[in-house]
């Protein structure tokens, strides 16, 4: 009988610190996930946690992990050459095939950038796949900014708006919540624009409402949910909302579905 809880061993090839508490772990792996899928990541004797895949190639996958609990604290102690244990990928990702030749807006708050980063890099490699890409990213403060080097690269090809909730004395960029910038966003042909919103629950809720005000169709808005998960495969019950299992039907949902997920 296949043991569905058996993870595979994956070597850490490099660790890229993003902030004091967010590190990107690059693991040797040939897993080819959908954009937005997640893995169950564990260290034996410490524990297991769901982590979204922040990027991948056919040789490695990247996980951007914030140090916020028992498992992630222990992961942050690891060094290149050490191993993480992974199983997955699980869930449904973003249906990028349906986004071809459209305008795409990606709005991400904080660590919400991780599950969509691989999509942005996909478009960075193949800009012709879509008509236009707008990126809106928000962080709490300048020291919380993730993927700074990549954001700089994206700016060369796409409209990128980076904002922080609270700046400091050296910060010269935008300040304020992402939602503040949505009304002034240049959106041509709102009927044909795909919007991806990922971030904290409140940010997602209000950002979606702002986009709806801009005439974006509900069926063109996509979100990704974060929930506690112990299994990732529809058994443990932690991520269930009504009859929907976030680990199975999500974590990526169309807005027409996500608006019905009352919790």
């Amino acid at each position, binding site marked *: *009988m*296949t*043991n*569905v*809880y*058996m*993870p595979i*061993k994956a070597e850490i090839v490099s660790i890229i610190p993003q902030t004091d508490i967010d590190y990107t772990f690059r693991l040797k792996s040939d897993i080819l996930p959908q954009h937005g899928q997640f893995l169950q990541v*564990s*260290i*034996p*004797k*410490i*524990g*297991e*946690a769901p982590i979204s895949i922040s990027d991948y190639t056919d040789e490695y996958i990247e996980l951007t992990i*914030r140090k*916020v*609990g028992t498992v*992630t604290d222990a992961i942050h102690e690891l060094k290149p050459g050490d*191993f993480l*244990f992974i199983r997955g990928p699980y869930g449904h990702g973003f249906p990028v095939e349906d986004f071809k030749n459209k305008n795409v807006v990606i709005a991400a708050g904080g660590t919400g950038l991780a599950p969509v980063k691989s999509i942005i890099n996909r478009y960075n490699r193949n800009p012709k796949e879509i008509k236009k890409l707008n990126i809106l990213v928000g962080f709490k403060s300048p020291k919380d900014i993730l993927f700074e080097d990549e954001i700089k690269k994206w700016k060369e090809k796409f409209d990128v708006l980076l904002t922080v909730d609270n700046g400091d004395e050296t910060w010269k960029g935008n300040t304020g919540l992402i939602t503040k910038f949505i009304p002034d966003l240049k959106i041509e042909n709102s009927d044909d624009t795909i919007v991806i919103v990922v971030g*904290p*629950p409140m940010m997602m809720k209000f950002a979606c409402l702002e986009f709806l005000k801009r005439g974006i169709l509900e069926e063109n808005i996509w979100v990704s949910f*974060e*929930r*506690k998960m*112990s*299994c990732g*495969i*529809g*058994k*443990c*019950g*932690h991520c*269930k909302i*009504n*009859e929907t*299992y976030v*680990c*199975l039907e999500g974590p990526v949902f169309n807005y027409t579905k996500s608006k*019905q997920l*009352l*919790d």
Partner: protein
Amino acid sequence: MGIELDVKSFDDALKILSKNYKIFAPVRLKGKGAFSDTDLVTYGEISSYKDIELNEKSRYSPKEVIYPITQTLFYFTEDEYKEPEIDDKGIIVFLRPCDANSYLKLDNIFLKNGPYEDNYYKRLRDKVKFFIIECTKGFSTCFCVSTGSNKFLDYDVFVRFDNDKITCDVKNDEFSYAFSGKEVEFIPEFIEKNEIEVKLPDIDKISQNLEYVFNHELWDEYTKRCIACGRCTVSCPTCSCFSMQDIFYKDNPKCGERRRVWASCMVDGFTDVAGGHSYRQKYGERMRFKVMHKIYDYKKRFGTTMCVGCGRCDDVCPEYISFIKIVSKVTDAVDRGESK
């Protein structure tokens, strides 16, 4: 046709069966109840007729026979993951129709939900043989007829305990060898009417009025009354949620285990995500989540009501909260809400 046995020949049958099976039934554990000088009625291994407790409903359900409270998934030595072995013997469970039906409800989650079967559940579940205890009266808090769980026909052996006269319908020929007695006419009976009847809400009506039901004031009462102890979910035969737990051994921290342990949507921490966010902080919201799972959304997903009407949640609640009453209130609210 049935086979009539006296206690001695029934015990002989158990003895023969025990060579190849572990046999579970409701048992009375003297002095093990929550209060002093009280007994605990629960499921345990038995070897003779006198071990079986037939006069009182078990506080805990037979789910732990196939889904233990704590189950080791892996033993760790350094970086090695090793799966624990299990007993070669089969499993016979003496249980009432409601509890037998609860196994089918668990099957939906562990075997049919999502793309994978849960191997730890399956390897125990595949061993199970159902020995149904005839139940025609039930107990004061039972409502299995209302939930459609009063019958269970896919049994291996059906047993009527009538004082010291025991009649068995051995449907599975595999077990014929163990039972020897007089052949008699025997038609298994099931309870047709409980003392309590509960009208379940129409799930389509809930779907059409989801926000109304979710935000209904009826849940507020439970924010005040419920203490989030989780007893209802522990005693429930269909509650199946679990959390992963890794441990290391104190005397050798290089070795340890990954376990799964029962979890409860009523208890703090169930929805905690990294960084401190959680959902359903109010106890009334948790009550709504649990009740709706039992009577609404599980049915929407799997086509059958999750609750089997055993009434254990009502028996064990320290705050005397009645699930039955909540279900009635939901049905009322849905019916009234719709007529508005």
